[in-house]
């Protein structure tokens, strides 16, 4: 069974380590904040200028001066700090964020990522995505493994305009956890009940299948 959105978020959160500063993209990455493992404390960076993002506000806490990068009203966690967008991206570009999680349209086995633009459709812009993928050492891309029509999104070479080149090392899809090494995808884990064959069939780039590919576990 393909992972649900909630399971994707849960699996992402398993990568969180105590003391990690993390930037979570809009959508599933943001959901991961709901599944932070026991005994692990993380601080969330919001690229508009906040380190230490808290949960959404209660009605009476809503403050138009306090939003996240998705323009949603938020709160601050204990120990939060505020700063300008230039300082925020100095932090990101300088490699100080421990983990970045974001979505994508396509990833290829060279570590390239396409996530911001589909030619012919409306161009909304890359926001901070290009800075995030260029600045982080440790990135997890979350997306569906293939389109509704069964077209793989793990490609030999991205077909859409790139967000970043050679910067992705780990992809979590609804079917599998895949690393990228030396120009190949390496299958690390599979979603519960999903066969290695199905994953292989839906992966267009070269896929290395280790002898043992454990199923993901969820607590």
């Amino acid at each position: 069974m393909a992972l649900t959105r909630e399971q994707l978020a849960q699996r992402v959160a398993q990568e969180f380590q105590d003391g990690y500063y993390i930037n979570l993209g809009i959508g599933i990455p943001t959901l991961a904040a709901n599944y932070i493992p026991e005994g692990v404390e993380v601080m969330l960076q919001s690229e508009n200028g906040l380190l230490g993002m808290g949960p959404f506000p209660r009605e009476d806490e809503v403050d138009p001066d306090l939003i996240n990068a998705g323009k949603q009203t938020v709160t601050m966690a204990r120990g939060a700090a505020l700063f300008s967008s230039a300082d925020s991206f100095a932090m990101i570009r300088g490699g100080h964020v421990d983990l970045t999680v974001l979505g994508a349209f396509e990833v290829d086995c060279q570590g390239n990522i396409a996530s911001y633009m589909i030619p012919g459709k409306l161009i909304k812009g890359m926001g901070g995505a290009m800075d995030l993928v260029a600045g982080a050492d440790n990135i997890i891309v979350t997306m569906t493994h293939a389109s509704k029509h069964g077209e793989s999104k793990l490609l030999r070479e991205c077909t859409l305009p790139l967000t970043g080149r050679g910067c992705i090392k780990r992809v979590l899809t609804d079917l599998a956890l895949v690393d990228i090494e030396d120009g190949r995808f390496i299958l690390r884990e599979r979603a519960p009940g999903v066969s290695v064959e199905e994953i292989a069939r839906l992966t267009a780039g070269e896929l290395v299948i280790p002898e043992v590919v454990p199923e993901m576990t969820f607590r």
Partner: protein
Amino acid sequence: MSGFDKVVGSYEEAMAGLEDNMTVIAGGFGLCGIPENLIKEIRRRGTRGLTMVSNNCGTDKYGLGILLVDKQIRKMVASYVGENALFEAQMMSGELEVELTPQGTLAEKMRAGGAGIPAFYTATGYGTPVGEGKEVREFNGRHYILEEAIQGDFSIAKAWKADRFGNLVFRKTARNFNPMAVTAGRIAVVEVEEIVEVGALDPDEIHLPGIYVNRLIQGTFEKNIEQRTVRSA
């Protein structure tokens, strides 16, 4: 009367000298921390052919979006331009030129414009459409592209508090692009919620010194929210 008193008497005075085809740098992220009333004054003046530099272009009803109604913007430099149907229409028809710039690069280009740095290298955008036509250079085995500074004829920004000398304090994430925008404008106009007496701000807690500010005005703000997201109590 001190030569450092930056306070002007009206929004009209605040934007005096703004002419067609100028470049204006605006602070704000989404609708957060935007110079609402300065934008409305540009609307009122009917200035046209503007190049606007700002992370976003507001929405159909608020922020820089209201300058689209009478097609006052010729070119938009931004990182994200969703949530705006008029924008889409004018971009598609070719009336509005758009230069998409990554958010962090945009922030750094503004900072560079204010800091006398004409250009810098960044890995952001290398190997993407953003890097096309730009110089690529290797440092320590990694590829970077050359990005040039941005300066504006005017900059418009919003702060929380200021003293009459233009020393600025921002509030929470309404800070965003505002400090850099102020530094990068030849004429920097700032509107604030409160003007305090000189000496009332702790010098260690001033986010941006008044040297960058040319004109200062106190306004009232709607502070619209794009995504009002709450949790149940």
